Protein backbone atom coordinates (compact mmCIF):
# COMPACT_ATOMS: atom_id res chain seq x y z
CA UNK A 1 0.00 0.00 0.00
CA UNK A 2 1.38 3.41 -0.98
CA UNK A 3 0.04 6.82 -0.10
CA UNK A 4 0.90 8.86 -3.16
CA UNK A 5 -0.81 11.92 -4.70
CA UNK A 6 -0.57 13.99 -7.89
CA UNK A 7 3.00 15.27 -8.26
CA UNK A 8 2.24 19.03 -8.22
CA UNK A 9 0.51 18.74 -4.82
CA UNK A 10 3.34 16.88 -3.11
CA UNK A 11 4.86 18.81 -0.20
CA UNK A 12 7.01 16.04 1.25
CA UNK A 13 7.51 12.46 0.26
CA UNK A 14 9.11 9.19 1.23
CA UNK A 15 9.96 6.87 -1.62
CA UNK A 16 10.98 3.27 -0.96
CA UNK A 17 12.19 4.29 2.49
CA UNK A 18 13.59 1.54 4.68
CA UNK A 19 15.27 1.93 8.04
CA UNK A 20 17.31 -0.88 9.53
CA UNK A 21 19.08 -0.29 12.83
CA UNK A 22 22.45 -2.02 12.58
CA UNK A 23 23.42 -4.76 15.01
CA UNK A 24 25.13 -3.51 18.14
CA UNK A 25 27.03 -5.45 20.81
CA UNK A 26 24.75 -8.29 21.92
CA UNK A 27 21.82 -7.28 19.72
CA UNK A 28 20.70 -8.18 16.23
CA UNK A 29 19.97 -5.72 13.44
CA UNK A 30 16.40 -4.42 13.63
CA UNK A 31 14.39 -3.83 10.49
CA UNK A 32 12.20 -1.04 11.86
CA UNK A 33 10.55 0.46 8.83
CA UNK A 34 9.59 -0.10 5.25
CA UNK A 35 9.82 -0.07 2.45
CA UNK A 36 7.38 2.82 2.69
CA UNK A 37 6.05 5.23 0.08
CA UNK A 38 4.22 8.32 1.24
CA UNK A 39 3.32 11.61 -0.40
CA UNK A 40 2.08 14.39 1.85
CA UNK A 41 -0.17 16.88 0.06
CA UNK A 42 0.53 20.54 0.67
CA UNK A 43 -1.66 21.71 3.55
CA UNK A 44 -3.13 18.34 4.46
CA UNK A 45 -3.40 16.79 7.92
CA UNK A 46 -2.05 13.26 7.74
CA UNK A 47 -1.97 10.90 10.71
CA UNK A 48 -0.02 7.67 11.07
CA UNK A 49 -1.38 4.99 13.40
CA UNK A 50 0.05 1.60 14.15
CA UNK A 51 0.95 -0.83 16.89
CA UNK A 52 3.68 -0.04 19.42
CA UNK A 53 7.16 -0.39 17.98
CA UNK A 54 5.98 -0.46 14.35
CA UNK A 55 8.33 2.33 13.29
CA UNK A 56 5.95 5.33 13.39
CA UNK A 57 8.43 7.58 15.17
CA UNK A 58 11.23 6.28 12.94
CA UNK A 59 9.17 7.34 9.93
CA UNK A 60 8.77 10.83 11.41
CA UNK A 61 12.46 11.13 12.23
CA UNK A 62 13.49 10.00 8.76
CA UNK A 63 11.11 12.55 7.23
CA UNK A 64 12.46 15.27 9.54
CA UNK A 65 16.07 14.48 8.64
CA UNK A 66 16.84 13.35 12.19
CA UNK A 67 17.67 9.85 10.89
CA UNK A 68 19.10 8.70 7.59
CA UNK A 69 17.08 6.03 5.76
CA UNK A 70 18.92 2.78 5.06
CA UNK A 71 17.36 2.81 1.59
CA UNK A 72 15.04 5.09 -0.34
CA UNK A 73 14.73 8.84 -0.69
CA UNK A 74 13.10 11.61 1.30
CA UNK A 75 12.17 14.95 -0.19
CA UNK A 76 10.71 18.16 1.22
CA UNK A 77 9.51 20.86 -1.16
CA UNK A 78 11.29 19.08 -3.98
CA UNK A 79 14.67 18.95 -2.24
CA UNK A 80 16.31 15.85 -0.89
CA UNK A 81 16.44 15.58 2.91
CA UNK A 82 19.89 14.39 3.92
CA UNK A 83 21.31 14.39 7.40
CA UNK A 84 19.94 17.76 8.53
CA UNK A 85 16.50 19.06 9.42
CA UNK A 86 15.55 21.33 6.50
CA UNK A 87 14.43 24.90 7.06
CA UNK A 88 10.63 24.96 7.15
CA UNK A 89 10.16 21.76 9.16
CA UNK A 90 9.07 21.97 12.79
CA UNK A 91 8.91 19.00 15.14
CA UNK A 92 6.98 18.57 18.40
CA UNK A 93 8.02 15.52 20.41
CA UNK A 94 6.09 13.29 22.77
CA UNK A 95 8.49 13.96 25.64
CA UNK A 96 8.38 17.25 27.47
CA UNK A 97 10.98 19.21 25.50
CA UNK A 98 10.36 22.56 27.16
CA UNK A 99 13.45 24.17 28.67
CA UNK A 100 12.91 24.30 32.45
CA UNK A 101 15.50 27.05 32.92
CA UNK A 102 13.65 29.49 30.65
CA UNK A 103 10.31 31.23 31.08
CA UNK A 104 7.45 30.36 28.76
CA UNK A 105 8.18 33.52 26.77
CA UNK A 106 11.89 32.74 26.43
CA UNK A 107 11.10 29.13 25.52
CA UNK A 108 8.95 30.34 22.65
CA UNK A 109 11.58 32.89 21.56
CA UNK A 110 14.47 30.39 21.62
CA UNK A 111 14.52 29.46 17.92
CA UNK A 112 13.98 33.03 16.73
CA UNK A 113 16.89 34.27 18.82
CA UNK A 114 19.06 31.47 17.44
CA UNK A 115 18.12 32.58 13.93
CA UNK A 116 19.08 36.20 14.67
CA UNK A 117 15.58 37.59 14.11
CA UNK A 118 15.16 41.26 15.12
CA UNK A 119 13.95 41.86 18.69
CA UNK A 120 10.73 43.63 17.63
CA UNK A 121 9.83 40.78 15.29
CA UNK A 122 10.59 38.21 18.01
CA UNK A 123 8.28 40.09 20.39
CA UNK A 124 5.50 40.24 17.82
CA UNK A 125 5.71 36.57 16.85
CA UNK A 126 6.11 35.24 20.39
CA UNK A 127 3.28 37.36 21.81
CA UNK A 128 1.10 36.27 18.92
CA UNK A 129 1.95 32.56 19.35
CA UNK A 130 1.39 32.66 23.12
CA UNK A 131 -1.93 34.42 22.65
CA UNK A 132 -2.94 31.85 20.06
CA UNK A 133 -2.00 28.98 22.38
CA UNK A 134 -3.70 30.62 25.40
CA UNK A 135 -0.44 31.14 27.26
CA UNK A 136 -0.26 34.93 27.46
CA UNK A 137 -0.90 35.12 31.18
CA UNK A 138 1.76 32.45 31.78
CA UNK A 139 4.43 34.19 29.69
CA UNK A 140 6.62 34.84 32.76
CA UNK A 141 6.00 31.43 34.35
CA UNK A 142 8.49 28.58 34.22
CA UNK A 143 7.51 25.21 32.69
CA UNK A 144 7.60 23.55 36.12
CA UNK A 145 4.72 25.80 37.15
CA UNK A 146 2.52 24.52 34.29
CA UNK A 147 0.54 21.34 33.66
CA UNK A 148 1.73 18.72 31.17
CA UNK A 149 -0.74 19.96 28.55
CA UNK A 150 0.41 23.55 28.95
CA UNK A 151 4.07 22.52 28.69
CA UNK A 152 3.24 20.78 25.42
CA UNK A 153 1.58 24.02 24.27
CA UNK A 154 4.83 25.82 25.11
CA UNK A 155 6.68 23.39 22.81
CA UNK A 156 4.09 23.92 20.08
CA UNK A 157 4.50 27.71 20.49
CA UNK A 158 8.27 27.33 20.13
CA UNK A 159 7.67 25.51 16.85
CA UNK A 160 4.88 27.83 15.71
CA UNK A 161 6.92 31.06 15.94
CA UNK A 162 9.34 29.69 13.36
CA UNK A 163 6.43 29.52 10.90
CA UNK A 164 7.15 25.98 9.68
CA UNK A 165 5.52 24.81 6.50
CA UNK A 166 5.58 21.18 7.57
CA UNK A 167 4.83 20.37 11.22
CA UNK A 168 5.68 16.90 12.49
CA UNK A 169 3.93 15.88 15.70
CA UNK A 170 5.33 12.76 17.38
CA UNK A 171 2.57 11.59 19.74
CA UNK A 172 2.48 15.06 21.32
CA UNK A 173 -0.51 14.25 23.51
CA UNK A 174 0.58 10.75 24.49
CA UNK A 175 1.19 11.68 28.11
CA UNK A 176 -2.08 13.62 28.55
CA UNK A 177 -5.46 12.45 29.82
CA UNK A 178 -8.30 11.78 27.34
CA UNK A 179 -10.22 15.05 27.87
CA UNK A 180 -7.10 17.19 27.62
CA UNK A 181 -6.12 15.32 24.48
CA UNK A 182 -9.48 16.17 22.84
CA UNK A 183 -9.06 19.85 23.72
CA UNK A 184 -5.44 19.86 22.54
CA UNK A 185 -6.72 18.29 19.32
CA UNK A 186 -9.00 21.30 18.84
CA UNK A 187 -6.03 23.60 19.34
CA UNK A 188 -3.97 21.74 16.77
CA UNK A 189 -6.83 21.97 14.28
CA UNK A 190 -7.03 25.74 14.86
CA UNK A 191 -3.27 25.97 14.41
CA UNK A 192 -3.46 23.93 11.21
CA UNK A 193 -6.18 26.10 9.72
CA UNK A 194 -4.43 29.33 10.67
CA UNK A 195 -0.94 28.42 9.47
CA UNK A 196 -1.93 26.46 6.40
CA UNK A 197 0.98 24.14 7.20
CA UNK A 198 1.09 20.49 6.30
CA UNK A 199 0.85 18.34 9.41
CA UNK A 200 2.02 14.79 9.96
CA UNK A 201 0.77 13.39 13.27
CA UNK A 202 2.13 10.20 14.77
CA UNK A 203 -0.29 8.71 17.26
CA UNK A 204 -1.35 5.43 18.79
CA UNK A 205 -4.84 6.80 19.48
CA UNK A 206 -7.27 5.85 16.72
CA UNK A 207 -9.89 8.38 17.86
CA UNK A 208 -7.32 11.18 17.79
CA UNK A 209 -6.25 10.27 14.27
CA UNK A 210 -9.87 9.95 13.09
CA UNK A 211 -10.85 13.31 14.59
CA UNK A 212 -7.91 15.37 13.36
CA UNK A 213 -6.89 14.04 9.97
CA UNK A 214 -7.75 14.33 6.30
CA UNK A 215 -6.00 11.02 5.68
CA UNK A 216 -4.78 8.31 8.01
CA UNK A 217 -2.10 5.74 7.26
CA UNK A 218 -2.51 2.49 9.19
CA UNK A 219 0.82 0.73 9.65
CA UNK A 220 1.66 -2.92 10.10
CA UNK A 221 3.65 -4.38 12.96
CA UNK A 222 7.45 -4.06 12.58
CA UNK A 223 8.82 -3.57 9.98
CA UNK A 224 6.21 -0.84 9.53
CA UNK A 225 4.48 -0.61 6.17
CA UNK A 226 1.22 1.07 5.23
CA UNK A 227 -1.65 -1.45 5.28
CA UNK A 228 -4.39 1.04 4.45
CA UNK A 229 -4.88 4.73 3.77
CA UNK A 230 -8.19 5.99 5.12
CA UNK A 231 -9.59 9.24 3.70
CA UNK A 232 -11.81 10.80 6.37
CA UNK A 233 -13.60 13.36 4.20
CA UNK A 234 -13.99 15.82 7.08
CA UNK A 235 -14.50 19.50 6.22
CA UNK A 236 -11.54 21.78 6.96
CA UNK A 237 -13.62 23.60 9.59
CA UNK A 238 -13.98 20.89 12.20
CA UNK A 239 -13.43 20.30 15.88
CA UNK A 240 -13.73 17.61 18.52
CA UNK A 241 -17.55 17.57 18.26
CA UNK A 242 -17.20 15.32 15.21
CA UNK A 243 -16.51 12.42 17.56
CA UNK A 244 -20.28 12.08 17.96
CA UNK A 245 -20.87 11.66 14.19
CA UNK A 246 -21.63 8.24 12.73
CA UNK A 247 -18.77 8.53 10.21
CA UNK A 248 -16.33 8.90 13.09
CA UNK A 249 -17.26 5.46 14.37
CA UNK A 250 -16.93 4.00 10.86
CA UNK A 251 -13.43 5.46 10.46
CA UNK A 252 -12.16 4.24 13.83
CA UNK A 253 -13.81 0.85 13.13
CA UNK A 254 -12.00 0.55 9.81
CA UNK A 255 -8.71 1.51 11.42
CA UNK A 256 -9.20 -1.05 14.19
CA UNK A 257 -10.04 -3.75 11.61
CA UNK A 258 -6.68 -3.04 10.03
CA UNK A 259 -4.73 -2.81 13.24
CA UNK A 260 -6.23 -5.42 15.58
CA UNK A 261 -4.25 -8.31 14.15
CA UNK A 262 -1.10 -6.20 13.83
CA UNK A 263 -1.33 -4.99 17.42
CA UNK A 264 -1.71 -8.58 18.63
CA UNK A 265 1.26 -9.57 16.52
CA UNK A 266 3.37 -6.83 18.05
CA UNK A 267 2.36 -7.99 21.53
CA UNK A 268 3.20 -11.60 20.69
CA UNK A 269 -0.42 -12.89 20.52
CA UNK A 270 0.04 -14.58 17.14
CA UNK A 271 -2.34 -17.44 17.98
CA UNK A 272 -5.17 -15.11 18.99
CA UNK A 273 -4.66 -12.93 15.95
CA UNK A 274 -5.33 -15.86 13.70
CA UNK A 275 -8.69 -16.67 15.36
Amino acid at each position, binding site marked *: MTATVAHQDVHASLSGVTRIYPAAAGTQAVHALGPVDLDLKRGEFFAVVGPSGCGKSTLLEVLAGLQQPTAGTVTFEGRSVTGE*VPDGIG*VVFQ*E*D*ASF*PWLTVWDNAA*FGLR*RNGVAAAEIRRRVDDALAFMGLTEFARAYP*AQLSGGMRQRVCISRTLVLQPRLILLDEPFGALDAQTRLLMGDEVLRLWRRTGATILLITHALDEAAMLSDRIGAMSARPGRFLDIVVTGWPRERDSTIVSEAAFGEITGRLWDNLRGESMKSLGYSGMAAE
Partner: protein
Amino acid sequence: MSRVGWIRIVVLVIAIGLLELCCRLGLIDHRVVIPPSQMADALVRLLISGQANDQIVRTFGIVVVAALISVVAGFALGVVIHALPRVRQALDPFFATYYAVPIFIFYPVMIVIFGLSVIPIVLMGVATAIVAMIIATLNGLDRVPRVLSKVARVHRMGTIATALLLKLPAAAPHLFTGGKLAVSYAFIGVIASEFILAPAGLGRVISDAYTDFNNRQMYALMLLLIIVATVVNMLLHVVDQRWAERRGIAKP
Protein backbone atom coordinates in the same frame (compact mmCIF):
# COMPACT_ATOMS: atom_id res chain seq x y z
CA MET B 1 10.73 33.07 57.44
CA SER B 2 9.05 29.65 57.29
CA ARG B 3 7.87 27.77 60.37
CA VAL B 4 10.63 25.21 59.84
CA GLY B 5 13.18 28.04 59.73
CA TRP B 6 11.96 29.37 63.07
CA ILE B 7 12.09 25.87 64.61
CA ARG B 8 15.65 25.53 63.35
CA ILE B 9 16.66 28.83 64.99
CA VAL B 10 14.92 27.93 68.26
CA VAL B 11 16.72 24.55 68.39
CA LEU B 12 20.07 26.27 67.76
CA VAL B 13 19.44 28.95 70.41
CA ILE B 14 18.37 26.30 72.96
CA ALA B 15 21.51 24.22 72.23
CA ILE B 16 23.80 27.25 72.61
CA GLY B 17 21.90 28.35 75.73
CA LEU B 18 22.24 24.90 77.30
CA LEU B 19 25.98 24.84 76.57
CA GLU B 20 26.32 28.34 78.08
CA LEU B 21 24.40 27.26 81.16
CA CYS B 22 26.39 24.04 81.63
CA CYS B 23 29.68 25.96 81.35
CA ARG B 24 28.52 28.74 83.71
CA LEU B 25 27.25 26.24 86.30
CA GLY B 26 30.51 24.35 86.13
CA LEU B 27 28.89 21.18 84.77
CA ILE B 28 31.47 21.38 82.00
CA ASP B 29 35.02 22.17 83.05
CA HIS B 30 36.10 25.56 81.62
CA ARG B 31 39.50 24.01 80.83
CA VAL B 32 37.67 21.76 78.38
CA VAL B 33 35.03 24.06 76.90
CA ILE B 34 34.54 27.78 77.48
CA PRO B 35 31.02 29.30 77.38
CA PRO B 36 29.80 30.27 73.87
CA SER B 37 29.54 33.93 74.97
CA GLN B 38 33.28 33.88 75.77
CA MET B 39 34.03 32.23 72.44
CA ALA B 40 32.15 35.04 70.68
CA ASP B 41 33.87 37.67 72.85
CA ALA B 42 37.29 36.18 72.09
CA LEU B 43 36.51 36.07 68.37
CA VAL B 44 35.41 39.71 68.27
CA ARG B 45 38.55 40.79 70.15
CA LEU B 46 40.74 38.69 67.87
CA LEU B 47 39.18 40.19 64.76
CA ILE B 48 39.43 43.74 66.10
CA SER B 49 43.07 43.26 67.08
CA GLY B 50 43.86 42.01 63.57
CA GLN B 51 46.21 39.46 65.10
CA ALA B 52 44.93 36.54 63.03
CA ASN B 53 44.07 38.45 59.85
CA ASP B 54 47.01 37.06 57.86
CA GLN B 55 46.08 33.52 58.82
CA ILE B 56 42.41 34.09 58.02
CA VAL B 57 43.19 35.56 54.59
CA ARG B 58 45.69 32.80 53.86
CA THR B 59 43.37 29.93 54.79
CA PHE B 60 40.22 31.26 53.13
CA GLY B 61 42.30 32.20 50.08
CA ILE B 62 43.56 28.62 49.82
CA VAL B 63 40.00 27.31 50.24
CA VAL B 64 38.76 29.57 47.43
CA VAL B 65 41.62 28.51 45.12
CA ALA B 66 41.12 24.80 45.92
CA ALA B 67 37.34 25.06 45.44
CA LEU B 68 37.73 26.92 42.14
CA ILE B 69 40.27 24.43 40.79
CA SER B 70 38.04 21.54 41.90
CA VAL B 71 34.90 22.99 40.29
CA VAL B 72 36.55 23.95 36.99
CA ALA B 73 38.80 20.90 36.62
CA GLY B 74 36.12 18.55 38.01
CA PHE B 75 33.60 19.84 35.50
CA ALA B 76 36.08 19.56 32.60
CA LEU B 77 37.12 16.04 33.61
CA GLY B 78 33.47 15.07 34.08
CA VAL B 79 32.64 16.23 30.55
CA VAL B 80 35.61 14.33 29.07
CA ILE B 81 34.88 11.14 31.05
CA HIS B 82 31.20 11.34 30.09
CA ALA B 83 32.20 11.47 26.43
CA LEU B 84 34.36 8.34 26.80
CA PRO B 85 32.06 5.53 28.05
CA ARG B 86 34.85 2.93 28.32
CA VAL B 87 37.05 5.22 30.37
CA ARG B 88 34.05 5.92 32.55
CA GLN B 89 33.38 2.19 33.03
CA ALA B 90 36.99 1.76 34.07
CA LEU B 91 36.88 4.71 36.50
CA ASP B 92 33.45 4.15 38.03
CA PRO B 93 34.69 1.77 40.77
CA PHE B 94 37.31 4.35 41.81
CA PHE B 95 34.69 7.08 42.05
CA ALA B 96 32.37 4.80 44.01
CA THR B 97 35.03 4.03 46.63
CA TYR B 98 36.98 7.29 46.54
CA TYR B 99 35.59 8.74 49.75
CA ALA B 100 36.03 5.42 51.53
CA VAL B 101 39.79 5.91 51.27
CA PRO B 102 41.40 8.27 53.83
CA ILE B 103 43.12 10.47 51.27
CA PHE B 104 45.03 12.35 53.99
CA ILE B 105 47.47 9.44 54.02
CA PHE B 106 48.87 11.01 50.85
CA TYR B 107 49.54 14.37 52.53
CA PRO B 108 53.06 13.41 53.73
CA VAL B 109 53.89 12.26 50.20
CA MET B 110 52.82 15.64 48.85
CA ILE B 111 54.92 17.44 51.46
CA VAL B 112 57.91 15.33 50.43
CA ILE B 113 57.34 16.21 46.78
CA PHE B 114 56.34 19.89 47.07
CA GLY B 115 57.82 20.89 50.41
CA LEU B 116 56.08 22.46 53.38
CA SER B 117 54.29 25.16 51.41
CA VAL B 118 50.87 26.17 50.15
CA ILE B 119 50.95 23.70 47.25
CA PRO B 120 50.39 20.44 49.21
CA ILE B 121 47.51 22.11 51.09
CA VAL B 122 45.86 23.30 47.86
CA LEU B 123 46.36 19.82 46.41
CA MET B 124 44.77 18.21 49.47
CA GLY B 125 41.83 20.60 49.17
CA VAL B 126 41.49 19.74 45.49
CA ALA B 127 41.93 16.01 46.11
CA THR B 128 39.16 16.12 48.70
CA ALA B 129 36.77 18.14 46.55
CA ILE B 130 37.33 17.32 42.89
CA VAL B 131 35.74 13.88 42.76
CA ALA B 132 32.45 15.25 44.14
CA MET B 133 32.41 17.67 41.20
CA ILE B 134 33.30 14.95 38.67
CA ILE B 135 30.52 12.69 39.97
CA ALA B 136 28.00 15.57 39.97
CA THR B 137 28.97 16.44 36.38
CA LEU B 138 28.54 12.82 35.26
CA ASN B 139 25.16 12.64 37.02
CA GLY B 140 24.05 15.91 35.52
CA LEU B 141 25.02 14.95 31.98
CA ASP B 142 23.38 11.52 32.41
CA ARG B 143 20.13 13.26 33.27
CA VAL B 144 20.02 15.61 30.28
CA PRO B 145 16.85 14.46 28.49
CA ARG B 146 17.64 12.81 25.16
CA VAL B 147 14.89 14.78 23.52
CA LEU B 148 16.99 17.93 23.95
CA SER B 149 19.53 16.55 21.48
CA LYS B 150 16.72 16.11 18.96
CA VAL B 151 15.46 19.63 19.66
CA ALA B 152 19.00 20.88 19.06
CA ARG B 153 19.10 19.15 15.69
CA VAL B 154 15.70 20.56 14.75
CA HIS B 155 17.15 24.01 15.48
CA ARG B 156 20.28 23.04 13.51
CA MET B 157 22.56 23.69 16.46
CA GLY B 158 26.19 22.54 16.40
CA THR B 159 27.94 20.57 19.13
CA ILE B 160 29.19 23.62 21.02
CA ALA B 161 25.88 25.50 20.84
CA THR B 162 24.04 22.37 21.98
CA ALA B 163 26.42 21.93 24.89
CA LEU B 164 26.33 25.57 25.99
CA LEU B 165 22.70 26.46 25.33
CA LEU B 166 20.93 23.19 26.13
CA LYS B 167 23.02 20.53 27.88
CA LEU B 168 24.78 22.83 30.32
CA PRO B 169 21.61 24.57 31.55
CA ALA B 170 19.80 21.21 31.70
CA ALA B 171 22.59 19.74 33.85
CA ALA B 172 23.06 22.94 35.88
CA PRO B 173 21.19 21.87 39.06
CA HIS B 174 23.48 18.84 39.41
CA LEU B 175 26.55 20.91 38.63
CA PHE B 176 25.55 23.42 41.29
CA THR B 177 25.12 20.63 43.84
CA GLY B 178 28.59 19.40 42.87
CA GLY B 179 29.97 22.91 43.32
CA LYS B 180 28.34 23.18 46.71
CA LEU B 181 29.88 19.88 47.81
CA ALA B 182 33.25 20.89 46.36
CA VAL B 183 33.30 24.07 48.48
CA SER B 184 32.50 22.08 51.65
CA TYR B 185 35.09 19.41 50.88
CA ALA B 186 37.71 22.04 50.03
CA PHE B 187 37.13 23.60 53.47
CA ILE B 188 37.65 20.22 55.13
CA GLY B 189 40.70 19.33 53.05
CA VAL B 190 42.48 22.65 53.62
CA ILE B 191 41.76 23.06 57.33
CA ALA B 192 42.60 19.42 58.09
CA SER B 193 45.88 19.64 56.16
CA GLU B 194 46.84 22.83 57.99
CA PHE B 195 45.93 21.14 61.26
CA ILE B 196 48.14 18.14 60.52
CA LEU B 197 51.22 20.03 59.35
CA ALA B 198 51.60 23.51 57.87
CA PRO B 199 53.83 26.55 58.35
CA ALA B 200 50.78 28.82 58.83
CA GLY B 201 47.01 29.08 58.43
CA LEU B 202 43.97 28.83 60.67
CA GLY B 203 44.33 25.06 61.07
CA ARG B 204 47.90 25.53 62.25
CA VAL B 205 46.92 28.36 64.68
CA ILE B 206 44.08 26.24 66.11
CA SER B 207 46.52 23.34 66.50
CA ASP B 208 49.05 25.59 68.30
CA ALA B 209 46.36 27.03 70.56
CA TYR B 210 45.25 23.51 71.41
CA THR B 211 48.81 22.50 72.28
CA ASP B 212 49.26 25.65 74.42
CA PHE B 213 45.94 25.23 76.26
CA ASN B 214 44.91 28.59 74.81
CA ASN B 215 41.20 27.82 74.86
CA ARG B 216 40.00 31.35 74.08
CA GLN B 217 41.97 31.51 70.81
CA MET B 218 41.22 27.92 69.86
CA TYR B 219 37.46 28.25 70.35
CA ALA B 220 37.38 31.73 68.79
CA LEU B 221 38.93 30.43 65.57
CA MET B 222 36.80 27.29 65.62
CA LEU B 223 33.74 29.54 65.92
CA LEU B 224 34.98 31.64 63.01
CA LEU B 225 35.37 28.53 60.83
CA ILE B 226 31.94 27.25 61.80
CA ILE B 227 30.33 30.63 61.05
CA VAL B 228 32.06 31.07 57.69
CA ALA B 229 31.42 27.48 56.54
CA THR B 230 27.78 27.69 57.65
CA VAL B 231 27.14 31.08 56.03
CA VAL B 232 28.75 30.02 52.74
CA ASN B 233 26.75 26.80 52.72
CA MET B 234 23.52 28.55 53.63
CA LEU B 235 23.97 31.10 50.86
CA LEU B 236 24.62 28.34 48.33
CA HIS B 237 21.67 26.39 49.72
CA VAL B 238 19.34 29.38 49.31
CA VAL B 239 20.44 29.86 45.69
CA ASP B 240 20.06 26.12 45.06
CA GLN B 241 16.61 26.10 46.69
CA ARG B 242 15.31 29.04 44.66
CA TRP B 243 16.64 27.49 41.49
CA ALA B 244 15.08 24.13 42.33
CA GLU B 245 11.71 25.71 43.10
CA ARG B 246 11.73 27.56 39.81
CA ARG B 247 12.47 24.35 37.95
CA GLY B 248 9.97 22.32 39.94
CA ILE B 249 12.65 20.07 41.40
CA ALA B 250 11.60 19.30 44.96
CA LYS B 251 14.58 19.51 47.32
CA PRO B 252 14.17 19.03 51.04
